[in-house]
C-alpha cells in the first residue's frame, strides 16, 4: 500500500531523516518507535505531503506521492501530535469544518459526525467549545477529525501524549477497532507499551535512521532478551546471592541494598526457585517482580540508551 525508499530530510546542518525505508501493507498497524528527535514526525510529515523530502521516494498504491499528492491526500487521515483544532469553536463545529475540508457536505457530513462522535465517545459534549474539554477529550476529537472521511490510511503521531489512563485506554481500543474494520495505520510513539499493544510490525528509529524492524517477537528475539526477576528483602540479601548463583538458569545477579536482581534467559518459573532458596535463609521477602524482555530492552540493546532518555 505504502512504500518509502531512502527518504532523507535536512534542516540546515541537521540531518533529521537519513535514508528511511518503510512499508505499510493494507490492514496493518505499523509502529514507529523512537525517542523524541528520532525523526518520526519528520518522516510522517513527508508521507502526509506536508514536507518535501530532500531525497528518496514515497509511493502510495504505486503512485509517486511527491509528483501527485492528490490520491493520498483524499484517503489519508492525519492525527497530529498537536491538538490541531479550533479551541473557541464547539466540537461539532470543528468536526463539521474538518469534514468539509475532506469534501463532505450536507446530510452525509452530519451522519459522519454522528458516527465518529460515537466512536470517539464525545457525542454528549459536541455542543461544548473544545477549550472546555479535558486533555483526553481533546485528544479524542483530534482523532475524530481525521476519521470523518473514512481514510484508508491513518497516520497517528503520538496521539496519547499527556492524557489520563482512562482516555488512553479508550483511544487504544478505538485504534484497535478501526484496524479491525480494515483501516491501515501508522502509529508513532515513544511509549513502547502502546506500540507493543497495537502494532503488527514495528520500526525502531533513532537519530534519523531505522535501527530495527519486525514484529514485536522477532525484535525481542533478535536481541536475545533477558528476563529480570527483582526481589526486595527486609535486609541485605548477599548471603542468598551465592546460593542463587549456583542455579543453572541464572545468567548473573546484581545486589543493590536490599534489592536483588536476577537475569535469566530461561522460561522456567524462576519465582518458585527464588522463594525456595530465600526460605532457607530465613530472610523476609517483601516483594518479587518479573520483567520480561520488551522493546525497551531492544532499544537499550541497540543504542545503549533508554527510550525515554
Amino acid at each position: 500500500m505504502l512504500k518509502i525508499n531512502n527518504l532523507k530530510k535536512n534542516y540546515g546542518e541537521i540531518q533529521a531523516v537519513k535514508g528511511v525505508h518503510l512499508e505499510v501493507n493494507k490492514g496493518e498497524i505499523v509502529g514507529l518507535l523512537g525517542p523524541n528527535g528520532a525523526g518520526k514526525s519528520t518522516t510522517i510529515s513527508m508521507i502526509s505531503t506536508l514536507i518535501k523530502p530532500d531525497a528518496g521516494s514515497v509511493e502510495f498504491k504505486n503512485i509517486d506521492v511527491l509528483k501527485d499528492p492528490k490520491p493520498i491526500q483524499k484517503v489519508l487521515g492525519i492525527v497530529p501530535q498537536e491538538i490541531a483544532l479550533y479551541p473557541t469553536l464547539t466540537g461539532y463545529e470543528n468536526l463539521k469544518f474538518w469534514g468539509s475540508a475532506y469534501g463532505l457536505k450536507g446530510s452525509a457530513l452530519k451522519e459522519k459526525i454522528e458516527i465518529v462522535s460515537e466512536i470517539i465517545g464525545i457525542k454528549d459534549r459536541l455542543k461544548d467549545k473544545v477549550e472546555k474539554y479535558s486533555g483526553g477529550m481533546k485528544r479524542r476529537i483530534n482523532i475524530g477529525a481525521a476519521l470523518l472521511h473514512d481514510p484508508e490510511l491513518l497516520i497517528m503521531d503520538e496521539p496519547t501524549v499527556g492524557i489520563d489512563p482512562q482516555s488512553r485506554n479508550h483511544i487504544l481500543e478505538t485504534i484497535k477497532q478501526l484496524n479491525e474494520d480494515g483501516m491501515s495505520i501508522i502509529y508513532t510513539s515513544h511509549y513502547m507499551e502502546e506500540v507493543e499493544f497495537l502494532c503488527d510490525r514495528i520500526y525502531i528509529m533513532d537519530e534519523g535512521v531505522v535501527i530495527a524492524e519486525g514484529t514485536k517477537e522477532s525484535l525481542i528475539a533478535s536481541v536475545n532478551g533477558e528476563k529480570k526477576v527483582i526481589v526486595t528483602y527486609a535486609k541485605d540479601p548477599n548471603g542468598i546471592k551465592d546460593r542463587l548463583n549456583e542455579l543453572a538458569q541464572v545468567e548473573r545477579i546484581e545486589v543493590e541494598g536490599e534489592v536483588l536482581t536476577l537475569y535469566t534467559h530461561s522460561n522456567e518459573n524462576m519465582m518458585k526457585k527464588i522463594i525456595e532458596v530465600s526460605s532457607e535463609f530465613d530472610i523476609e521477602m517483601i516483594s518479587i517482580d518479573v520483567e520480561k524482555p520488551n522493546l525497551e530492552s531492544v532499544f537499550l540493546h541497540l543504542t545503549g540508551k533508554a527510550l525515554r532518555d
Partner: protein
Amino acid sequence: MSIFTLIKKDLKIVLSDKKALVILVAMPIILYTILSFALVGSFDTSDDEVWDITIGIVKEYDLENLESDYLTQEDAESLEKILFDVLDSEGLEFVSYRFMTFEEATEAIENNNISSVIILPENYIVDLGLNMSPTFRKPLDIQVIRNTDRQYSSDIVENIVSSVMENVSQMMITNKVTYETLNHYDIDKNITTQILDTMRNTEREPVSVETSVYNIDQLKMVNSGQYYSTAMMAMFLLFGASYGAKFMLEEKRDFTLQRQQSAGIHPTTIVLGKLALIFIIAVMQITLMILTSTIGFKVYWGEPIQIVFVTIITALAVTGFGSLLAAISLKAGNFKALNMMESGIFQILALFGGSYFPLFLMPDWFKWISRLLLNGAALEAYQKVMMGAPLNEMLPSLTSLMLNGIVFLTIGMIIIQRQPKNTLIPVSGEEVSI
C-alpha cells in the same frame, strides 16, 4: 473546499474571541468617546461657528482722496464693490463683515470676536483699476489674518478672497487679450464699440464665488466627536490587520494550517481566505464605528455612497498591510515581531497618522507625513467625506491608500513566496509556499 467555508470558519472564531472583539471593536469606541470629550477644546469648532462668520475689514485706502489720474470716482466705487458684492451675495448669508482699523481688527481677533481680518492695502483700488487696463500689470496683495481658534471659518474667508481675486484676474486677462486682438485686426468700429460695451457690462456684474468655495452650502466641519471617531478607527485598523496576521501564525503554530494542507486544500485558497478575513475585519471595524458613533453620539459621517467607496479602498489597503504583517510573522515564526510592532511602530504610526492629536494643529510637514501613512490617509479620506468634499479633494488620500495597499501586498506576497523550503507543501509536484 471553497474559500467561503474557510472564511465562515474564521469569522466564527473571530466572533467567539471576546478578547479580540474588545481590542478591535470596543477599545476604539471607548477611546474615541474619552478623547472626543477630553479634547473638545482643541476643536472649538461647531456648525454654528461655520455658519456665522464675521470678518473684520481694514481699508487702508481712502476712496474720497484717491491719487489717480485715470480713475473716476464712479470707477473707484465700482471696483471697491467687487469684493463687497461677493460678501453680500445670496450664497454667503452666513458671512458678515465690519470695517475696522488695524488695531481694532487685531484686538477683535485676540478676543475671538471675529473669524478673520482682510486687509485691503493703500493702493488696492488704484492697482485694481490699473490691472483692468489692457496695457498694465501690477501685483496686488491682500492680506488675510487668520483666527487660529477658528480654523475652518478662517479657511472659508481665505477661500473667498482667493476666489474673488482669481475671478478678477481672469477678467483682466480677458480684457487684455480682447484689446490686443481688436487692435491687431482692422475690425469695424461699430463692432469694436459693441464688444467693449459688453466687456464693461461684464466687469460691472458681481463676481461669482459660490462654486470656488467648494460646495459651501453642504460644507460640514468636523467636530471632536467626528475627528476622534475616524482617528481611533484608523489606528485600530492597524490592530485589525495585525490580528489577521496573528491568526495565520496561530493556525501554523496549532498545526491546523498544516492539517488543512494535508487535506488537500490549496495554499493559495488558504492565503486568499486569510486576506479576505482581514478585509472583513476591517469592514466590520469601520461599520461598527460608524454605527455606534452615529447612533450613540450623532456623528455625521457624510454621504453613504462616498462612505462605502472610501471604506472599500481603506479595507483593501488594510488587507495589503495585513498580508505584510502575516509574512513577517510567518518568517519570524513567532509573535514577537508583531507584538513589537504593535507596541512600537503602530504607536508611531498612530501619532503621525493624527490619532492622538488633531492634525490641523500640526505643521505642514507633519500633515504630509500623515497623508503618506495608511492610517493617516484613511483618517483624511473619511474626514473629507464628512466635510462633503468633492472627489478631487479626496484623491491624494485615496491614492495614498491604494499605493499603501499595493506596496504592502506585493512585499508581503514576495516574503511569503520566499519562505524556507522545509515549510512548503508539494502540490502537483510543485513547491508552494505558505
